[in-house]
C-alpha cells in the first residue's frame, strides 16, 4: 500500500510531474478565481471547458497538428465561455448566488454529454508532439521533455498573466473588481462587459490547460468532472480571489497529488478532498484569500 521506495531519481521525477500538474492547475485556478472573485460565480463549467480544450486537439490535430491548437482552442472556448455568460448566466446575477452555481452545474452536465455525443464514449489515447516526446537523461535523474515543456510554457503564460493583471488597464480593473466591485461600478466601468471578458479569460485558461494536458492524460468524457474538484481545492487552499494564492495552491496540490500517486497510490484520488476538508476546517480563507469573501 504505502511504498517508501524513494530514491533521488523517483523524488525528482515526481517533483517534476508535480510541478507540471501544478502549473496546469495554477492556470485553471487563476481562471476560476478571477471569475469567483469578481463575479462571485462558482463556475462548474470550468472542468468541461478544460475537457473541450483537450478534445479540440483530437479534432484539429489532423488538420493543423498540435501547436495551433494551443491558440485556436482557447480562443474558441473563450468565445464560447463569453457566449454562455452573456446569455445564460447574466440574467441570474440579481438572484441568490446559488442559482448561478446550479446553472453552471447544469451546463457542465449538458456539455459532458455533448462531448459524448460528438466524440463518443471511448477514451482517445494521445502522445506528445514529435520533438517533445522522450526524455532528457541527466545521469542523476531523468526528465520527461514534455512535462518540462509544460512547466516552461505555463510559467511563461503566468508571467504574461501577471503582467496583464498588474500593468494593463483591463487587468488592473479586473483585479480591483475582485476586491471592491462597488467601486468599479461607481467609477463608471461597464461591469457587464467586464464580467463577460473575465469569464472568457477564465474559460480560455481552462482550455489551454486542457490542450496542454491532452498528450499526457489522454482524453475521455468524464475528464472535466474529474479535474474540477482539484481546481476548487487549489482555489480554496490558495484563497479565493488571490492570484499568488492560486499559484502556491496549484503547485502545492500538484506536488502532493504526484507524490501520493507514488507513495500511497490508493489514496491519490481522495487526497485532494482530504486536503480540501482540512483547509476548509482550519483556515477557510486559504493562504492568501480575502477574509469572508463568501460567508
Amino acid at each position, binding site marked *: 500500500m504505502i511504498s517508501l521506495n524513494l530514491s533521488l531519481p523517483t523524488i525528482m521525477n515526481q517533483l517534476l510531474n508535480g510541478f507540471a500538474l501544478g502549473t496546469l492547475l495554477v492556470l485553471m485556478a487563476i481562471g476560476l478565481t478571477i471569475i469567483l472573485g469578481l463575479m462571485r460565480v*462558482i463556475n462548474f463549467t470550468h472542468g468541461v471547458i478544460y475537457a473541450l480544450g483537450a478534445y479540440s486537439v483530437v479534432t484539429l490535430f489532423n488538420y493543423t497538428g498540435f501547436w495551433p491548437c494551443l491558440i485556436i482552442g482557447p480562443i474558441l472556448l473563450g468565445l464560447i465561455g463569453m457566449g454562455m455568460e452573456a446569455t*445564460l448566466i447574466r*440574467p*441570474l446575477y440579481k*438572484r441568490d448566488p*446559488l*442559482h448561478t*452555481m*446550479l*446553472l453552471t*452545474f*447544469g*451546463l*457542465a*452536465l*449538458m456539455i*459532458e*454529454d*455533448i462531448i*459524448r*455525443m460528438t466524440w463518443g464514449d471511448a477514451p482517445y489515447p494521445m502522445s506528445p508532439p514529435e520533438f517533445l516526446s522522450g526524455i532528457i537523461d541527466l545521469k542523476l535523474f531523468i526528465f520527461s521533455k514534455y512535462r518540462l515543456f509544460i512547466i516552461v510554457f505555463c510559467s511563461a503564460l503566468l508571467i504574461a498573466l501577471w503582467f496583464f493583471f498588474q500593468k494593463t488597464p483591463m487587468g488592473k480593473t479586473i483585479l480591483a473588481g475582485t476586491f471592491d466591485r462597488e467601486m468599479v461600478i461607481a467609477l463608471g466601468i461597464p461591469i457587464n462587459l467586464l464580467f463577460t471578458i473575465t469569464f472568457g479569460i477564465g474559460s480560455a485558461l481552462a482550455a489551454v490547460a486542457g490542450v496542454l494536458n491532452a498528450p499526457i492524460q489522454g482524453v475521455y468524457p468524464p475528464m472535466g*468532472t474529474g479535474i474540477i*474538484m482539484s481546481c*476548487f481545492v487549489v482555489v*480554496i487552499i490558495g484563497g479565493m480571489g488571490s492570484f499568488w494564492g492560486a499559484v502556491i495552491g496549484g503547485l502545492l496540490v500538484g506536488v502532493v497529488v504526484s507524490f501520493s500517486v507514488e507513495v500511497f497510490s*490508493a489514496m491519490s*484520488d*481522495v487526497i485532494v*478532498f*482530504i486536503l*480540501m*476538508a482540512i483547509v*476548509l*476546517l482550519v483556515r*477557510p480563507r486559504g493562504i492568501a484569500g480575502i477574509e469572508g469573501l*463568501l*460567508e
Partner: protein
Amino acid sequence: MVILFALVAVWPKIIPFIGGYTGLAIEMVIFAIFALGFDLLLGYTGILSFGQAAYFGLAAYTMGIVCINFKVPILLGMLIGILIGTLAAVIIGLLIIRKTGIYFAMLTIAFGQMFFFIASRWKSVTGGEDGLTGIPRDSISLGLFNWNLKNDLSFFYFVFVFFVAATLFKYWLVESHFGQVLKTIRENEKRAQVVGYNVRRYKLYSFIISGVFAAVAGTLYGMFLRYIFPQTLDWVRSGNVVIMGLVGGLGTLFGPILGAGVVTYLMNFISYYTKYWQFFVGAIFIIFILFFPRGIWGFVQKKR
C-alpha cells in the same frame, strides 16, 4: 395531502399508462423521501449540501453488509443502516456546521467523496467498484403476519408506508415552531441570531434530520435493487437530488415529492430513447433555473 397519499397509493396502477412500471414507481417514491429531507435543508433552512448522497449510500451499504455477513433480519438491518447513516450526519454536521455558504457546500462534497472513496476501495467489505450484491428483500414478520417483499408491488407498499411517515413527519416539522425558526434562519441568519435563537444548533438539527431522511431512502434503495454500488455516494448523485428539489419546488411540501417523481421518471424515460439523458436533464434543469426557479409547485402556487 390526503389526495396526495391516495394518488401515490394507486400510483403503480396508473404508471403503466405513461410508460412506466412498478419498479419505476418504487424508485420515484424512494427519491421523494430523499428529496423531502434535502428540501428541509435547502428549502427551509437555506443550507446547500452537495453531499447528502453520502448518508444515503452509507445507510444502504451498512444494511447490506450487516444483513449479508451477519444474517441480520431485514427490519433490524434497516434500523442499523439508518442509525449509522444518521451517526455519520451527526459527526460530519458537528464538524462543519460552523462554516457557511460555499465553504459548507464544499465540505459536504469533500466528505461525500471520502465516503465514495472508501466504498470504492475497501473491496473486502464493500465489494469495491463492483458493488455489494445480494441485499435481502424477503419476508418480514410483523408478529401477526408475514409480509412478503419479494414482489415489486408489495415492496412498493412497504416503501409507501415510509413515504407516508416521512411526509407527515416533514409536515409536522415545518409547521411546528422548529420549522418556523428554520425559515427565519433561511431568510436572515444574522437576524435570527440576534433575536436570540441558537442558529448553529437549529442548523445542525436540520442537517441531521435531513441525513435521517437520506438514510431511510438509502436503505430502501438498497433493498429495491438488492444491490448497492459506490456511485450512489458521489457528489454527482447528490447533485441529482438538488435538481429534484429545484425542479419540484424548494420550500414547499409537495415540491420535492413532485420533483423527485418528475426527474426520476424523466431520467428513465429519456434513457429509453437515448443514452444522453444527462444532456436533457441538464437542459431541463437550466430551463427551470432560468424561468421557473421556484419549481413546478412553486409556479403552481404563484398562479393561484
